[in-house]
């Protein structure tokens, strides 16, 4: 074999293998959460329950779900056991519970260099903690600030919609403990409660201009929150 033929054969092997890269599976149905801002009382039970259920350190000043209180335009965040809303003096205040929005077009999934973030077939965005290398690209990419570094594991962590509970037909911990029912969680398909509510009432999503298609919908949110 001449050198030219040899090189042709060798260099064409990688090109041929490119054609067989598998396509990521399509999503079918998806879970969705509705947060009624008017019903939230800022008690912080969801924050505590989330930390216990997912064993995030209680003293860590960041959480998988957190509550933002807006008092006359001033923002106060609750993400530990202590409730900072108790002694606020203001005329008007609203509480906005926040969590990972599980976007259909998720920036964190797009930027992850090792493919550690992925969509499950239920539309939940998960972090594969064995593949994650802790480069923190996703923290920069997320427009909602829902991703953080877990200091014990040294890799990124975020809300999973309580995937381990949902798989056992239980509600997520934050939905379960909410005393006023401000959070509703269900599969987004025709006939479900979430679907009916979204059909009837006016809802909004956070930062629609980023084009992420979130699956967390907010009711009665009458102001633009950061």
């Amino acid at each position: 074999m001449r050198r030219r033929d040899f090189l042709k054969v060798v260099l064409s092997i990688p090109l041929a293998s490119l054609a067989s890269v598998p396509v990521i599976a399509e999503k079918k149905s998806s879970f969705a959460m509705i947060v009624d801002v008017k019903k939230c009382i800022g008690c912080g039970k969801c924050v505590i329950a989330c930390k216990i259920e997912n064993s995030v350190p209680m003293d860590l000043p960041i959480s998988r779900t957190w509550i933002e209180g807006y008092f006359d335009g001033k923002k106060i965040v609750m993400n530990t056991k202590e409730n900072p809303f108790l002694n606020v003096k203001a005329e008007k205040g609203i509480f906005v519970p926040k969590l990972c929005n599980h976007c259909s077009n998720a920036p964190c999934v797009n930027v992850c260099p090792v493919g550690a973030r992925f969509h499950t077939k239920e539309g939940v965005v998960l972090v594969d903690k064995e593949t994650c290398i802790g480069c923190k690209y996703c923290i920069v990419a997320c427009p909602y600030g829902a991703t953080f570094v877990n200091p014990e594991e040294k890799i990124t962590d975020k809300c999973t919609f309580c995937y381990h509970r949902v798989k056992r037909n239980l509600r997520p911990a934050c939905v379960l403990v909410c005393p006023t029912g401000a959070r509703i969680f269900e599969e987004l398909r025709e006939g479900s409660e979430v679907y009916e509510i979204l059909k009837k009432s006016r809802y909004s999503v956070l930062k629609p201009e980023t084009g992420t298609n979130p699956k967390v919908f907010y009711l009665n949110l009458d102001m633009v929150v950061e």
Partner: protein
Amino acid sequence: MKPWILVLILAIAVYGGVFVYTFNLSPMIKEQSIENWLQIESSKSISYMESSICRECHLKLYKNWTMGNHSSVECESCHDYGAEHVKFRSSSSILVEKSRDSCLVCHREVTGRDAIKSVSYDHGSGVICTYCHDPHR
């Protein structure tokens, strides 16, 4: 054979090997790691049970609770997580908090808290709430 040919073959072998591994054989592209992680994630233990499990033992309280004002509030919302209590079934493994602060977590007057009935911090000061109000009714 000239030495540069050997170097070239070695370089091509390394390049081809890395290429084939990255795009065809690595666990990431085969989604093996994803399937593994899905199993790990869904087999994690749960801490919060549902209120229907509480019914198995505390039937009388459960019936009171379903007819009372707090029927929309799940048991573990006040009593904290019940996984240990389900296992040990002792009174020390579940939270029974009768202090004022426990009620005032939700019922204290705070700016923006309009969805439920709230009282000022001085309401019936010094008296434990459960003397007058039964939380299960």
